[in-house]
Each structure stands twice: as C-alpha cells, then as structure tokens.
C-alpha cells in the first residue's frame, strides 16, 4: 500500500453502501481515477463538500495493489466554483465538461493538458462566460487533446488532401469518420453528413490551435454557431459511444 497526493477535479460521485461514496476524479498526476470515500455521506464526514462534482481539491489517496479503486483519505478544497451550483445553465455546461472528460479518458493515463483544460473550462464558467459557447470551445479543445481531433485537412472517407484544387468549402462534416468529407464522398452518404460553413471550419481550427489565453476572444453566432453545435454534438455522441445529457439540459422551465 502506498500513499499518494495529487491535485484533482471531481467528475462524478455515486452512493455506495450505507454511507460511502465512489468518486471519479480527473487528477493531475494519475489521470482519471476512482476512489472510495468511507463515511462520506455521514453528517460529520471529514470530506464535507470536497467530493462534490466540479470541486478542485488536493487529494490524498491510498493505493492498494491489485485493486483499481483507491481509498480516499483526505480532500482539501482548492476551488469550489460556487456559481456552478447556483445557476442551471452553468451547471449543465459544467456537467457536459466533466461528462466528456469521463467519457474520452482512460483510467491511469495522466495528461496535464487535459487537467488544465478542464480547470480552465470550469473557471471560465465561474467567471461568467456564456455557457453554450464556453462548453463548445471546451469540447473542441478536449477532443483535440485526447486523440479525437476533428480532421480538417483531408477527406476522412477517401483520404485525399484538401489542396487548392479541391474546394474545402464544398466539404461536409461526418461524425462517424470524425472530420470533413469531400463533396463526392458526402454525396454517397448524405444522411450521415452535416453542413459545416467556412466560418465554422475556421472556428474549429482556431479553437484547436490558439493559446488557451486567447480562447475567450473566439466568438460564434448565427449559422456558424448552429452548424458547430450540431456537428460537435453528433461527433461527441459517436466518440463517447452514447448520447450525453445535452448542454441546455436544465434550461429554465416554462411555467405551466
């Protein structure tokens, strides 16, 4: 048995047994990990709110050889992101962020870039950025960092590069193949392809390549925004292998 310490962000937590919780984190040093927090649901638990989703904490763990579950011994809160608990739109955006991280990362495969991207995404929401756009940027960025970068330089069906002779403007987006398909390939499976305007394509490329500090300056509205949201939503469903709860999942109710 060895004791470990790492900064971590809580992705999700579920009840276990009488008063315990099994918590999934994305940690800086060990990537995604799951741990048991004994007595976490008791009134006077030493964990308090430290194991709630979206909390950034310093985690102390015991690793037991041959057991994929760690034992959580202590969690010291670093950031609580209180707005994410008080606003349904921000909460839904943050939920999509942690759900996507949980879906596209493997346990025990650390990536400091993924950790920083998640932390940055939650901070942006907390600071009041528009939740729909912030979540969209986060998803494109994370897909690029986890091996699912949307391919934009060649046709993902026939492999031909989009040189000057092949007009990328006629290409469409295929969630199944994870990128652009040229017009002739798209015409063979029109029901599986989505439109993607030149503006949407430029947005994806910028979201993937600009420094993190520049991300808040990227904007998308109108048709560009609509195309992007439809394309990324479909692609995320393919990558995650299931439909994640929508970004506007808990939109304010219409009075009855």
């Amino acid at each position, binding site marked *: 048995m060895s004791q470990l310490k790492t900064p971590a962000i809580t992705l999700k937590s579920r009840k276990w047994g009488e008063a315990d919780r099994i918590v999934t984190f994305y940690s800086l040093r060990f990537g995604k990990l799951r741990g048991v927090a004994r007595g976490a649901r008791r009134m006077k638990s030493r964990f308090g709110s430290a194991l709630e989703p979206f909390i950034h904490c310093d985690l102390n763990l015991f690793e037991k050889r041959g057991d994929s579950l760690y034992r959580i011994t202590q969690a010291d809160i670093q950031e609580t992101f209180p707005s994410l608990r*008080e606003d349904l739109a921000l*909460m839904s955006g943050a939920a999509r962020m942690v759900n996507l991280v949980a879906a596209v990362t493997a346990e025990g495969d650390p990536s400091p870039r993924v950790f920083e991207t998640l932390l940055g995404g939650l901070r942006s929401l907390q600071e009041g950025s528009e939740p729909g756009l912030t979540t969209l940027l986060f998803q494109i960025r994370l897909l690029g960092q986890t091996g699912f970068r949307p391919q934009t330089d060649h046709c993902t069906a026939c492999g031909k590069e989009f040189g000057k002779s092949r007009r990328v403007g006629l290409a469409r987006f295929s969630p199944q193949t994870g990128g652009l398909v040229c017009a002739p390939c798209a015409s063979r499976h029109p029901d599986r392809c989505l439109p993607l305007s030149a503006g949407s394509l430029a947005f994806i490329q910028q979201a993937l390549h600009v420094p993190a500090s520049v991300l808040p300056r990227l904007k998308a509205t109108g048709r560009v925004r609509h195309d992007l949201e439809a394309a990324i939503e479909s692609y995320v469903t393919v990558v995650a292998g299931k439909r994640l*709860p929508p970004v506007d999942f808990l939109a304010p*109710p219409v009075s009855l």
Partner: protein
Amino acid sequence: MSVDQQGLLAQLIRELVRLPGIGQKTAQRLAFHILKTEREEALRLAEAIRAVKEGLAFCRLCRNIAEKELCEFCRDPKRDRTKILVVEEPSTLYAIERTGGFHGLYHVLLGSLSPLEGVGPSDIRAQELVDRLKEGEVQEVILATNPTIEGEATAIYLTKLIKPYGVRVSRIAYGIPVGMDIEYADEVTLIKSIEGRRDL
C-alpha cells in the same frame, strides 16, 4: 466454492446481487444463510416482500409510501395544509417526521434532477407538486432536497417552476452540524452558513 449456475441457489444469488450494496460474495453468504434457516423464518421474509409489493403503493397526493390511496400524513386533518415540505425520497420524510418539528404536508419527488446522469424534470414528481399548488390552499413550499449538486439543481428548478404561483418558496438552512467544531467544517458549508446567518 462455486455454485451451479443453473441451480435454484444460483437463481437466489442472482436476485440478491440486484439489491443495492450487495456484491457477489455478500449475496452468496445471504443465500447460504437463507438455505440454513428454518423454513418458516425464510418464508416469513418472502411473505414480507410479497406483502410490501402488493399492499403498498404511493400516496395519490404526496407520493409518499401509503397502504391506502392517501398516506397517513395526507389523511391527518390536524396537519397544516398551507405548508408543503418537498423531499427527494420517503426516507428523508421519515427523518424529518422523527424530529416532531414540522406539522405541514409533504411532497416526495422520488428522485432528483441530475445534469450529470441525465435525470430530467419528467423523471421526478415535479408536475404533481405544481398540480397541488393549483388548488390554492398552499402558502409556502419548503425545499428540503439534499445539499448535493443534484439536490441544488432540483431546488433551483422547482423554485423557477413554483414562483409564478405566488406561494412563498424557502430552502432548508445550510450550516454546521450541532456538536461539530467549526474549524473542521469545509469551505462550502462555512460560506453557506455565514450567508444563511440569522439575527438573534
């Protein structure tokens, strides 16, 4: 010891494993215990399970567990019908009832909203609460959902849903548990307890 996968004992173990918090080994231990107990004792357990499933249902008004159409609280004429306390599960209702400090009616949501798991408004008994407000007798709704992300989402959602009906909506207080040293409280609880302070 491995159990024949097709046999009656294996069937019992498979059913026990479906219960929350019961793993394969615990299920096997319980199954062997049932096998060794007196026939009458084991059948009493089976009869109790059958009786619960056939004799209990959810209250037509508040969705608490009830033996009749209405639960004991909704039938009681002495309860204050101007206040409804909303909880996620019947077990919370009985915890509050044990305090003896609340004399109004209850509403059990039978769940909570979860943006993480995709549990939406149609999966909980929110509409039934709104239907009760339409009758006009209720003056206050007290939201006693858990102080978790799911409970908070539910409380915020219900507040937006209920406010247009002109009833007072309140949330149970957050704070330091009685008997605890403040220095050991976590940051979120401390902030909430300061925000929710009251005059003396």
